[in-house]
């Protein structure tokens, strides 16, 4: 082997060694730490998924129990006029509480995420948040909506909204995210006029301009609202 060949082999070895050190450094600094973060994150996501599955099972069980109770009450009402009268009263109360499915004319509002602006930094103004949903639902109720559902979740007298970073949680349901569909049964002309009013929903309107947040709506002669499938317990409240 000539001196020149020796030198080139040494050069190749040195370059390979340097590359090896650089790759190892990169792996330590850039790859392993994120891998741990990702693993931790995935564990949290798995927990959420497990809890969501439990949540769905529990809601299905509640819906089934309510149907069985209704059948048993119907049977009892068939044997007594007094029971039938009571059942009619409860049926009306259940309808107003959102415990029974309903349909009628109304309006469907669609809310969807916009685009992050170039100067939005870490801001999440382009995402649909729970306050947007709350504002739209309140506006529709103020315009006489008789029943409302959000992505198939029925709104009840006890409904509360929460969430963060584009996640919308309604009562005991799973988190919802864009696109959000708010379905309301009631006077569709009145609701449409309110949604058309440029002074209504000021926060959403501002973000429509800034982040192209989507807000569209369409009227319909017949919309279906599902029954509420969660809890209406008020353990701390006693009727006077």
């Amino acid at each position, binding site marked *: 082997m000539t001196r020149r060949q020796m030198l080139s082999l040494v050069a190749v070895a040195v370059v390979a060694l340097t590359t090896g050190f650089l790759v190892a450094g990169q792996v330590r600094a850039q790859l392993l730490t994120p891998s741990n973060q990702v693993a931790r994150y995935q564990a949290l996501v798995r927990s959420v998924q497990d809890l969501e599955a439990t949540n769905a099972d529990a809601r299905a069980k*509640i819906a089934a129990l309510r149907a069985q109770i209704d059948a048993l009450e119907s049977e009892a009402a068939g044997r007594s006029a007094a029971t039938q009268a009571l059942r009619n009263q409860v049926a009306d109360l259940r309808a107003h509480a959102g415990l029974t499915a309903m349909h009628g004319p109304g309006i469907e509002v669609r809310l969807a995420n916009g685009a992050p602006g170039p100067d939005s930094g870490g801001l999440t103004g382009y995402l649909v948040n729970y306050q947007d949903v709350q504002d739209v639902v309140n506006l529709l109720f103020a315009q006489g909506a008789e029943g409302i559902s959000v992505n198939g979740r029925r709104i009840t007298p006890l409904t509360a909204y929460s969430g963060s970073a584009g996640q919308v949680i309604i009562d005991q349901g799973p988190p919802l995210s864009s696109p959000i569909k708010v379905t309301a049964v009631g006077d569709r002309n009145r609701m449409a006029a309110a949604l058309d009013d440029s002074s209504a929903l000021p926060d959403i309107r501002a973000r429509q301009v800034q982040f192209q947040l989507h807000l569209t709506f369409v009227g319909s002669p017949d919309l279906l609202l599902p029954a509420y499938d969660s809890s209406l317990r008020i353990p701390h*409240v006693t009727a006077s």
Partner: protein
Amino acid sequence: MSPRRNPLGTRRLPRRRASGGAISVWLIALLVALIATVQIRSEAEVARSLVGIDTTSLAFLIDDLHRANESLQAESTDLAQRKATLESGGSGAADQVLSDEAKHLRAVEGLVPVHGPGVVITIDATGLTALDLQDALNNLAAGGAEAMAVNDRRVVAGVPIEQTGSGVAVDGVFIAAPWTITTIGDSNRIGEVADAMTQQLRADRRVRQASYRVEADVSIRAVISERPFVYAVGS
């Protein structure tokens, strides 16, 4: 024959071996670099896709879902008990179950006066809007309030809270300052929400005073009138 050509060809073989070895080393180095790059980029891609929901938000979500599932479990237990009562008794049992549910739903819908442990919040301010009041009531409901009233006007989801020329109206009636928000529910949880809320309100220039008190028995006498459906039909 060119003088530059190797007449015996004896020196060409080791030269090929040396250059072949170097190429192999380079190829391996290139392959390692390629795999490392792909791996780093894919990890970075995964990390970027998770930016939407941070771990803190996920932790809150888990907490919310735990609480929701406990509540659903309690509702299931109540319903199973109601079903067992209906299965075991005659029309007397059915009447009792139906009467109990009617009483419960009237309280849920704000149709009857109610009482129980709770928190009373007082906010004296100028210029607060209907959206401010809606946000406050929603925070309290999300924080465990089971019945609420504002200045003796009963509020449930669906009661209109609107901005009018003279200020904020609840169910069509103007609500003058100071606002007294009466809540019934888990007073520990509502107390925490009220504490955070009043601190935040005191930092608001429109607010002159914001305070709360926890009470063992709060009474809400205001009720909502029943509204028959005009458009909706039961399915």
